[in-house]
């Protein structure tokens, strides 16, 4: 049902992801300008922002570790792309690994290092605190996230994404694994340090990990962040929402529609909810979310054994 594309699939994937990023950023910008009551063309604002960053001077701080901070921003972009290698668009996928779910998780874990490196590399107190906030955030979201991924894999009895999609022929996983789905979405927000989990780049830290970035470096960092968000949203579709399954429309279009819907919700949440401070989320993550996801995994494994 899912087939691997020839090499050019890897060239098309970035285009698709960039389109989704552009759409999501434009949506975010429209929401922002509505709240501000501004009268300017919000739809093209993200594109103008790219233009601005392209001509902006790259600055650096004294004794900055350029290799780490710039490498970190680049790693964020690369990880965002690579994570989506295993995400099928309808019936096409760039790489049909037998351990696709592990691959996805490994790529997004790169973000952990990347954000920390950017914050640390700038040799700036705010960047440093921001970087460490993200490490703390990782401690909070990563375990529930992994259990959510594992739950979907359990349901399909396979780590291959194609098998996960096939296993949802009759019933989407979101229906009988709602906890895993919600936890997955929360952790996508957290790993893209978006929405209520944006403390690593928060306004209280004057931008935190990204406080010292300008020009191309900031462009890469922001792009990487959006790519992570888009990749996370797109992976929710094969994992919980039945992949490209749906009536009338072709399956690739269903994949896109579902991805866009998840993405729209994720972007919108940021408008509704203030930042969750990490020490508070830590409690919830360890005391509530981990046990919940474990129970969810247990239920799923019992069902799988019984059927």
């Amino acid at each position, binding site marked *: 049902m899912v087939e691997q594309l020839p090499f050019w699939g890897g060239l098309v994937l970035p285009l698709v992801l960039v389109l989704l990023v552009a759409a999501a950023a434009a949506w975010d910008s429209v929401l922002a300008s509505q709240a501000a009551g501004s009268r300017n063309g919000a739809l093209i604002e993200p594109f103008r922002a790219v233009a601005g960053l392209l001509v902006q001077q790259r600055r650096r701080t*004294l004794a900055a570790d350029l290799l780490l901070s710039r490498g970190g921003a680049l790693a964020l972009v690369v990880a965002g792309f690579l994570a989506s290698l295993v995400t099928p668009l309808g019936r096409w996928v760039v790489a049909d690994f037998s351990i696709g779910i592990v691959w996805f998780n490994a790529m997004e874990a790169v973000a952990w290092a990347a954000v920390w490196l950017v914050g640390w590399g700038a040799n700036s107190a705010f960047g440093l605190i921001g970087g460490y906030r993200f490490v703390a955030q990782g401690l909070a979201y990563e375990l529930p996230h992994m259990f959510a991924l594992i739950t979907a894999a359990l349901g399909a009895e396979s780590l291959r994404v194609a098998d996960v999609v096939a296993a949802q022929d009759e019933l989407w996983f979101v229906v009988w694994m709602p906890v895993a789905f919600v936890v997955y979405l929360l952790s996508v927000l957290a790993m893209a340090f978006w929405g209520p989990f944006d403390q690593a780049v928060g306004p*209280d830290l004057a931008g935190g990990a990204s*406080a010292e970035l300008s020009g191309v470096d900031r462009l890469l960092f922001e792009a990487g962040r959006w790519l992570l968000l888009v990749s996370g949203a797109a992976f929710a579709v094969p994992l919980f929402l039945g992949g490209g399954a749906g009536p009338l429309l072709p399956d690739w279009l269903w994949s896109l529609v579902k991805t866009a819907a998840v993405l729209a919700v994720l972007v919108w949440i940021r408008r509704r909810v203030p930042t969750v401070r990490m020490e508070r989320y830590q409690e919830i993550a360890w005391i509530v979310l981990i046990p919940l996801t474990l129970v969810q995994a247990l239920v799923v494994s019992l069902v799988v054994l019984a059927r």
Partner: protein
Amino acid sequence: MDLTSWLLRRTPVRPLIAAAPGGTAARLAAEREARVRGWRPALNPAEANLLIVAGQPQEPMAAAVEAVWRQMPFPRVRAELLHAAEVEGALDDAVRRLHSADHQRAQAHQAHPNDPAGHEHGEHPDAHGAETHTMDHGHGEPHEGHPRAAHGHGDHGPASSMTPHHGAHDDHAQHHEHASQGQAGHEQHHRDSPAHRAEQEHHAKHDQGGHEHDRPAGPDGHAGHGDHGEHPGHGEPIQHTAQGNHGGHADQGGHGGHDDHGGHGGHAGHDMSGMEMPGGIPMADRSPDRDGLQLDQLHVQLGPILPAWPEGLVVRTALQGDVIQEATIDLLPAPRGSDPFWSSLAEGVPGTAARRLDSCRRLLTVAGWEEAAVVAARLRDSALAGERIDPEFSRWARRVRRSRVLRWSLSGVGALDEPGSPLAGDAMDRLTRWLHDAEAELRDGVAANAEDPVGALERLPGLLAGSEFAAARLIVASLDPELERARVAHG
């Protein structure tokens, strides 16, 4: 038409507003204008391309503004606004200059007539329209392709050949630059003020111990630091930094809370002679943390130019990780004869409601709820313009009150057990009271003008000590002392 100019003309404006004490009217006008034009505010100098100076900065503040200006990458412009009425025109003009490739190039050229690097870097010249002081050459703006040495002073001639004043200034410049590092507080080193010395040390990581190895005396030898100048290999900046640090330390010793000074002797045990000072910044200090471990200690200054920060407030902190160990506060002076803005509003304007909405905007911004903060700003501006804001205000207030995540985030932060005081309770209680005050004035026209800025300032250091950075910002924002009135109260 070249690509650079084409892109430059499309650059969105990212304003960073530096509000000087007494500049509230201009700040509000600028915020309003920026919001209506759809400019998303910059959180830091790195992101900004328009520096809006609201009000008339007096000395330490003026130096802070210069520092932030130097940290801003090209392209950049500056708009200085004294009166609310001139804002629109001044910002139009600033945008024109920002989008003009000719202007940006000329500015760069003018600032660096002798620096070929400035030309090589085309649209990324190292200039800070800073009225061409010669000493501006002293700090290489951190741009691409510049040899690292540019950060030292080696290539600009010895600072000692300048007048002492210039030398000092040069050093400052050097600092801000890089110091993005201490960007904390966006770097403000005021020259010629005692404060400036303390600030130098905010250059984040500095290690008292780092100087220890060639210091003749023990901890009390802080004064004897002239000799750092001769220290080879450290380059010019260190001399000043070193002195600054020590000034700062002496200062801190004065606060009594810094018992780690004795501990520095212990640091001599570290292999200081071999310790490198990366980029000329001494390494971080050390002291025991709340769990009894020896951890790095940074001296970071917050304010006066920081997003959602009270005008003219400076908090000097000693940070371990993100825990504030001690904090001292400073008020920057306002120009003579300036009236507190919020008490001199026209008849019929719901001043209390607007003031409360302004405080809410700050607190919500720091709490990371951009949406609610922007709505608060919009409502505030409408209220100041004399428009009715009632139905929308109630909807917004209900949403803020009902947000569980906000309550979860604010409760228990900065708790003061002083029933009856306008500051009583925690950050959430204070926010709720603000909403209530605003509501009362909008509905019944009753202005509950209960504020205690002096009390807030007195309690601030105690509340900040021991809090984590995020909580500290929430504490400051939830007290939001109206400094213009605090100054009046102080005489």
